[in-house]
């Protein structure tokens, strides 16, 4: 059963019970989104835990999480619903005999077609409807949490299509009529801010900017997500990562990368972060050669030509 949040402190406390450290700000706005029944648009750099917020939110309130990952070219049939053609075909084949009885004795082709048309709702009924995330969220048995992930990747016209759903929580399917939400889902949209979203979409949402957390919060996240890490090491690691974020890098390390790095440090049984350990593990944090060079310069220790770091040429991320 879903249990909405009762107050701001309750929101924060239950989110943290679901392993998500929510700042005052996040707590307040999540609480508001639920109180007002408004979609929430969370914007911010990649890897600050926007998607994690959705998961924790769903877990904390006991809602099923329905996720729609956006990408270029995403269209209604992938997001909303699709007719199950194959099943329709199969049924027509299997029902050939009964169809023949229906059509038997038709005087003309026109009459046969009319009789067939009278029966066509059989094939355009809900049993042949394949619900995609948006429709699934509207028709869900219990109130759901709909996560529309990375909306900035979808095309602009998809954004326009979302407007209808976000303001009325209903969709029209030509063959069936209008489907209204059984329960109004909570909606979280995330954006990595790679392009400006339309003002119409922003107007319909509450807005939350999620930034990298401060030192204490990130250490807290690390302790929660990487159990068994020594507090001193956790703090040292976070301080280092946060220093990296201040450099002018092509790809700034995200929280998830901090977590991966901490796990790597644990796996290597690192006591503290010495140059040697860094040399071996920095590829987890930085994925570009030029970024690595900058990081070394920051540490005041540029390796000579012979010992140049070679493992860091990861796949280009964007």
């Amino acid at each position, binding site marked *: 059963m879903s249990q909405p949040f009762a107050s*701001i402190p309750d929101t924060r406390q239950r989110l943290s019970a679901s392993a998500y450290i929510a700042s*005052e*700000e996040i707590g*307040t*706005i999540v*609480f*508001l989104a639920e*109180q*007002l029944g*408004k979609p929430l*648009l969370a*914007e911010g750099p990649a890897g600050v835990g926007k998607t994690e917020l959705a998961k924790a939110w769903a877990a904390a309130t006991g809602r099923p999480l329905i996720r729609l990952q956006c990408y270029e070219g995403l269209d209604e049939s992938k997001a909303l619903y699709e007719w199950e*053609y*194959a099943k329709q*075909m199969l049924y027509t084949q299997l029902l050939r005999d009964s169809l023949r009885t229906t059509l038997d004795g038709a005087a003309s082709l026109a009459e046969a077609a009319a009789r067939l048309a009278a029966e066509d709702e059989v094939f355009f009924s809900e049993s042949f409807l394949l619900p995609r995330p948006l429709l699934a969220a509207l028709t869900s048995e219990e109130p759901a949490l709909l996560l529309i992930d990375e909306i900035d990747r979808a*095309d*602009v*016209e998809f954004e*326009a299509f979302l407007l209808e759903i976000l303001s009325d929580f209903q969709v029209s399917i030509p063959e069936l009529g209008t489907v209204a939400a059984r329960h109004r889902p909570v909606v979280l949209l995330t954006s990595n*801010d790679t*392009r*400006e*979203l*339309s*003002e119409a979409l*922003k*107007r319909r*949402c*509450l*807005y*939350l*900017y999620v930034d990298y957390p401060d030192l204490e919060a990130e250490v807290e996240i690390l302790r929660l997500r990487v159990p068994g890490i020594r507090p001193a090491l956790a703090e040292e690691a976070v301080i280092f990562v946060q220093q990296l974020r201040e450099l002018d890098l*092509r790809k700034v390390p995200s929280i998830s990368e901090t977590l991966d790095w901490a796990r790597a440090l644990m796996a290597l049984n690192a006591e503290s972060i010495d140059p040697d350990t860094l040399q071996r593990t920095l590829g987890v944090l930085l994925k570009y050669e030029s970024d690595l060079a900058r990081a070394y310069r920051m540490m005041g220790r540029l390796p000579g030509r012979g010992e140049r770091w070679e493992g860091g040429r990861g796949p280009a991320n964007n």
Partner: protein
Amino acid sequence: MDRRITEFVRGLRAAGVRVSVAEATEAAEAARAVGLADREAFRRALSASTVKARDDQAAFEALFPLYFGSGGPPLQDALEDLEPEDRDRVRAALEALSGRLQRLLDWLTSGQGPSREELEAMARRAGMDRTQNPRQALWITRRMLQELGFGQLEKLLAELRARLEAAGMSEAAIEGLMGVVRANREALAEQIGQQVGLDLARKRAEAQASRLTGDGDLMDRDLQDLGPLEVEQLRLEVKRLVARLRSRAALRQKRSKAGRVDPRRTLRANLRYGGVPIEIQHRRHKLKPRLTLICDVSTSMRPVAEFMLRLIYELSDQVAQARSFAFNADLEEISPAMAGRKAAEAVAEVLYAIPPGYYATDLGTSLDTFERDFREAVDRRTTVIVLGDGRNNHNDPRVDLLAGLRGRARRLVWLNPEGPERWGTGDSDMHRYAPHCDAVYPVGNLAQLAVAVDRLLAER
């Protein structure tokens, strides 16, 4: 509280933040949902429902304390905690100061601050009517404090202290009294500062509401005579413009997809239905244009070139490829300098790094360099855009090179901030170039520039 929020929203709008009526209503709902007890939560609730772009956050932070106070402490009654005989001593000592700064001392000791009328009168005397610039708030505040006598206060308090000591008041009681008076002094200064800021912000909001079309004006202003502040404002405007242009371009792409049927892809897609064509696939046009820009960056053309490049690079997802070249006396490619960074932001930096020069423009030589070094930048799929005023300082225009360029390119479009009535005057060679262009668009202001870019994206 709703009225306060409405006023606040009006202030936000005056500061350039777009807040719809629905959002204002929502802000009030949000405020009710979190309550007023927790100031921070209240602030966040308002912020989440009114400010939807990060750039606008600064305006919000600046205005919020003006409308809802910064939570500074109210004035306290300094005499309240004193013994009755001490109270009499203080009154006597104040009287003995013979009315100097009496008003101020009264406020500071009694905890009764100035009334609203008194404050307004003081503000008027300090020059409030002559300005609506929020930056003057500090100055006006300082003048008001001066008028009240904050400058002499310290001396007077020392005198008061001496008198109280002489009257036999205990050291601890005096300390207590002075502590409260000093706290009141800070609180009063803050109250006055807030009042001034709020009044100025309101005045500004009202002034701006009366000329609603601020942004539109700027869009129609000549790009070549903008002040630096206005250029800054226009840069923000470009973002909105881009969002609009992008959705237009995207819609065009979408509609045009529903054009010709692609038999090969349709067959392939319908194999799973036994070859019965249920899902029809359409041919995807290669609609996104490939652009090669040749921009004049002489001093007078820079703003135009900057906004043009900004538009193109912000719209890079609607463009298949864009290469840009800048010329003044000679030509160089600038696209590599912008690659990998947030291109739109790099534009200004790159452009202004090219040394300026007056009377140095030479399109003839630049076209020659282009033909020699960058021939591969133009093929039959590219649209070549020349951005310039066609003023060539009486150098050889080399019209033949331009004609050749048009022959190899798909289209050649010239964007010129000068209208046809000025072509051919002075050192303008535009009348010679124009017959060799497929189209010449006027780009005197941002609105025209937007139309030109829209047409570039629309052509197929």
